């Protein structure tokens, strides 16, 4: 694994003290099966710091009401808090304008929104959408639905045995009919970091737009959508130490303005008569109905929390931890790492020789170590790599070297049971 310039040190970065940070997460003091909890499943969903828990509780206790509706004070407070969260997320993502930040339920809804709204308006039979072998099912199925409905062509960029995209193949796939490249930034199954800025450059040269699935990159890399140059970027709050049921679709203004509503109802209109309805401008156009107001406030608090720690510092901590874990786990002869990309973050996927991942997960759980096992909603990738399922340890900002040692002891326990 090479040191990455993305997380190069800077003199102004605050010192990262993982023990102090752990104090911010009440759940980490829990015990499971009589053992201290070792939570290595943040790629599935991350735990929440007190800053988020408190922001949510305080908002609900002191400021909650519906937004953009009432003339009363609480409605004003709630509206302010909701729009303030949008501003926080705009800065967090490096977007040019708050109107480019659409609140959605999560990554899945964000991709579905683009497929349904942008896709149905701008794609025609024979147009091509390029995805990759390592996509999550949520970045495969929406495009398959459009394929069946409109007759678009879905092209899939292959990966090598280490789990890296074959960029030469990608370049060959870009053609006059390519309209969109929809690509995962950081693979949830393998930890591969894809060269998204380069992919954007190549796609834009051919006039294709790029959607980035940032479900894993938003929490673990210091993402800046303007620097990436992408047209759409989507992520979920609950993987970013925030609440579930809230996420963000970033879309460049000119795209969002050209897109029809995704769902319809209240909040997304300028005026309604039975003859004609005028739609609101983005982002309201895409936020029909009462949104997850409290969720947005919680997500804003999560983004502030991460920025308070320093995203570069967090990425550096996680990178060091992943390198340490890789080195420790590699020393166990029965373990095979799945995904050996040059540029990786946050995820260690592995197999234990002769033991199914599901059994590995159960035995680790008994040692207090929570990991994910299975296909990670990436069945085509698993098929490509010739594995049915993997065990996946994923790291968050609160994980420690001691927890890596607990993982290693847990794997030794697995070997003992299956000896």
């Amino acid at each position: 694994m090479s040191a990455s310039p993305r997380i190069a040190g800077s003199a102004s970065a605050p010192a990262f003290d993982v023990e102090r940070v752990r104090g911010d997460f009440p759940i980490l003091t829990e015990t499971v099966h009589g053992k201290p909890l070792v939570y290595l499943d943040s790629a599935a969903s991350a735990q929440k710091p007190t800053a988020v828990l408190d922001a949510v509780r305080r908002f609900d206790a002191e400021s909650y009401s519906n937004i953009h509706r009432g003339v009363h004070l609480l409605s004003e407070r709630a509206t302010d808090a909701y729009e303030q969260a949008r501003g926080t997320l705009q800065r967090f993502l490096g977007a040019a304008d708050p109107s480019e930040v659409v609140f959605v339920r999560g990554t899945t809804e964000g991709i579905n929104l683009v497929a349904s709204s942008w896709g149905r308006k701008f794609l025609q039979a024979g147009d091509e959408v390029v995805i990759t072998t390592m996509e999550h099912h949520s970045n495969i199925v929406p495009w398959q639905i459009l394929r069946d409905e409109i007759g678009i062509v879905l092209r899939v960029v292959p990966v090598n045995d280490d789990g890296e995209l074959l960029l030469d193949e990608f370049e060959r796939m870009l053609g006059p009919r390519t309209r969109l490249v929809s690509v995962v930034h950081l693979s949830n199954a393998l930890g591969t970091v894809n060269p998204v800025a380069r992919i954007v450059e190549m796609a834009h040269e051919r006039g294709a737009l790029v959607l980035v699935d940032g479900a894993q990159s938003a929490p673990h890399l210091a993402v800046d959508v303007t620097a990436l140059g992408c047209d759409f970027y989507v992520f979920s709050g609950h993987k970013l130490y925030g609440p579930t049921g809230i996420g963000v679709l970033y879309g460049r203004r000119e795209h969002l303005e050209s897109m029809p509503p995704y769902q319809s109802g209240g909040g997304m209109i300028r005026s309604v008569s039975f003859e004609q309805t005028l739609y609101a401008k983005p982002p309201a156009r895409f936020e029909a109905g009462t949104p997850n107001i409290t969720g947005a406030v919680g997500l804003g608090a999560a983004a502030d929390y991460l920025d308070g720690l320093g995203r570069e510092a967090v990425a550096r901590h996680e990178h060091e931890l992943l390198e340490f874990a890789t080195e420790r786990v590699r020393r166990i002869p029965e373990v095979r790492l799945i995904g050996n990309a040059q540029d990786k973050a946050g995820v260690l996927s592995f197999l234990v020789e002769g033991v199914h991942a599901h059994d590995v997960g159960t035995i680790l759980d008994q040692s207090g170590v929570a990991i994910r096992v299975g296909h990670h909603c990436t069945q085509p990738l698993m098929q490509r790599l010739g594995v049915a399922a993997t065990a996946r340890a994923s790291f968050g900002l609160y994980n420690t070297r001691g927890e890596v040692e607990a993982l290693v002891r847990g794997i030794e326990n697995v070997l003992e049971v299956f000896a």
Partner: protein
Amino acid sequence: MSSELRELYQEVILDHGRRPRNFRKLDTAKHAEGFNPLCGDKVTVYADVEGGRIRDLAFQGSGCAISTASASMMTEALKGKAPAEAEELFEKFHALVTGNADPEASAESVGKLAVFSGVSEFPVRVKCATLAWHTLRAALEGCDDPVSTE
């Protein structure tokens, strides 16, 4: 190692998980496919029924130690039985792995399958233990849709 783990991964289960019996395809038999979409496990169960008896029973697929051992021991337990007896044993087995069995009556009535009693301490693994059984039921009923645990 915790006692729950020792109960779950008994030697007999590990043995069947490593070297499953009747792990083959039966060309002429009734068959059905089962999936566990959560973990990607899949199994195909083949049941050769003749004269009201399961003359031969086999399976193929990939899965964890629990699901493989359960499928393997199921094929051993049900060869020569009538489909109705298979159904009856499945009900007892299901009660055993979900912790709903009468502790005294069950151990005898399920025979060797009693080694699966430890599964009841691991609710998320019940689906592993019962996948092959659900799939057998579908095969005997001539059901063409793949069985899913979800």
